């Protein structure tokens, strides 16, 4: 394990946007994540890799408290998630929603602003304009009125990214945003994330294409229920660690 030695709290808060301590998640009696100690450094593109069922999605969901945590603690900029949730944007897996839902692209992007609106306050022309700007950033301003089921998979993924952009957060937690998307979408998403990184924002992405990890990311987290490795790509993205992560299930050559 090549985790950086933890420093004093005040210093590590400056360096890390998310600090995870002794995190365990259990579904019924099945452990999904076991005793994870992990920090996400600021201003980095971070990939989470691991085989199917390794708990990659569970890890980012646990950061937001979307799955019940059995043990451990997560802090976002030194506070609990519920106190700092406006600093976090979330892109769920594309397959997790029903794209036949009666709504259009602009409306979905606007949902990113519902958290800031709070209870009872309705979306208005201001939120509408903000949503339009975000849709424009992902190159879909011409598709604002399109029912979301009429968009291609890549366009749907970009709508999800636009919704996360509307959240205007410091940390972007994304669940396989590059899974099965077209070339244009992949390029658009990466260039937007590159800009966010330059602004000092932290991008954490569940990623399944091992051959692109060293090309796109600065930092890699390798999980298979346990944390296998965590650190800068050059140091930890090695054959040995990959073998340990994927064990017998899958051997990838890079």
């Amino acid at each position, binding site marked *: 394990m090549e985790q950086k030695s933890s420093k004093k709290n005040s210093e590590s808060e400056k360096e890390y946007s998310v600090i995870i301590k002794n995190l365990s998640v259990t579904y019924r009696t099945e452990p999904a994540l076991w005793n994870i100690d992990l920090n996400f450094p600021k201003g980095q593109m971070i990939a989470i890799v691991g085989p199917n069922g390794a708990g990659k999605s569970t890890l980012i*969901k646990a950061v937001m408290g979307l799955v019940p945590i059995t043990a451990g603690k997560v802090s976002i900029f030194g506070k609990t998630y519920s106190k700092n949730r406006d600093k*976090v944007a*979330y892109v769920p897996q594309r397959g997790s929603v029903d794209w036949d839902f009666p*709504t259009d692209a602009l409306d979905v992007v606007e949902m990113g602003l519902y958290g800031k609106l709070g209870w009872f306050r309705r979306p208005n022309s201001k939120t509408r304009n903000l949503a339009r700007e975000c849709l424009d950033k992902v190159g879909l301003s011409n598709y604002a009125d399109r029912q979301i089921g009429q968009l291609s998979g890549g366009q749907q993924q970009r709508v999800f990214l636009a919704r996360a952009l509307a959240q205007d957060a410091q940390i972007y937690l994304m669940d396989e945003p590059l899974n099965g998307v*077209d070339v244009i979408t992949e390029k658009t998403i990466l260039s937007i994330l590159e800009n966010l990184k330059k602004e000092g924002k932290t991008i954490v992405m569940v990623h399944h294409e091992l051959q692109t990890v060293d090309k796109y990311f600065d930092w890699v987290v390798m999980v298979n229920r346990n944390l296998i490795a965590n650190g800068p790509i050059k140091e930890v993205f090695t054959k040995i660690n990959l073998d340990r992560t994927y064990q017998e299930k899958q051997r990838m050559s890079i």
Partner: protein
Amino acid sequence: MILEEILSIFLGIFTDYTLRYVALGSAILGITSGALGCFTVLRKQSLFGDAIAHAALPGIGFAYLFAGTKDSLLLMLGAAIFAWFGGMITLAITNTTRIKQDAALGITLSVFFGLGIVLLSYLQSIGGASQGGLDRFLFGQAAALIESDVINLGILSALCFTILILFYKEFKITTFDSSFGQSLGFPIKYLNVLLTSVIVVAVVIGLHTVGVVLMVSMLIAPAAAARQWTSNLKNMIILSAIFGGLSGIIGSMISSTAEGMSTGPVIVITITAILGISFVFSPKQGYLFKHLRNQRKSQISLDNIKTISDKEKENHGNI
């Protein structure tokens, strides 16, 4: 003349005292269940609606057993408590055991409905004629609606719409993408309970008119029909409410033309007819246009294959 006959039936709403309240009560039901049914359908919880409707039946029996009156508000309260309870039990079974939702719904539906039938037959055996009228909640008996009933239904309906308007944004986001809604801080569990509760109220409104057995079609059919015409949630809710209300009015008018024709089933057939028409003729999704749509789809998948193969090429180039 047929035209004159239809006209006289229609005018009956304004002149015939009984028909007026029957039509009004049925319209209130249709509007309420039409609007709320959109969420039932979009959450893929149609059978959940069916289960809570059936679960209401023992509530009516118990309310009568303990209170000894057929006061409609009291019976509705009993029905609401049991419907709500049935819904919560279904959710609890699904969340805490390995039993999947369809099986949990089957359990709730049949156990509660069975209990209701047992209670009703027991009441019949001890009370004789005094029980008469309770079994109308099986298939509804809109013809028995009087002014005070309609006022009660109106108040309940207004309550449902107030909650729907207040929590529209929250209901929408938790229906479309619940984990995203949760990440924004909306308490999806409480919102789900609230939405279920409002649907319970809609079911209770329907007890008098269509009864527990047919209630689910008043939740599903208007919403399914409306979805054929629009791809906007707000419009879908409005259209669904209109379809539901229309079928209530038309159904009660048709049933008034023949002695002893049950209103509830006729309303259900009317909304099903609207659904059938929508399936065939809606410009966006109707069967008539299916051919055209399929052509477009195959074009889209052709494009997709193209982009995927482009990507493959690029990936290979990079390795």
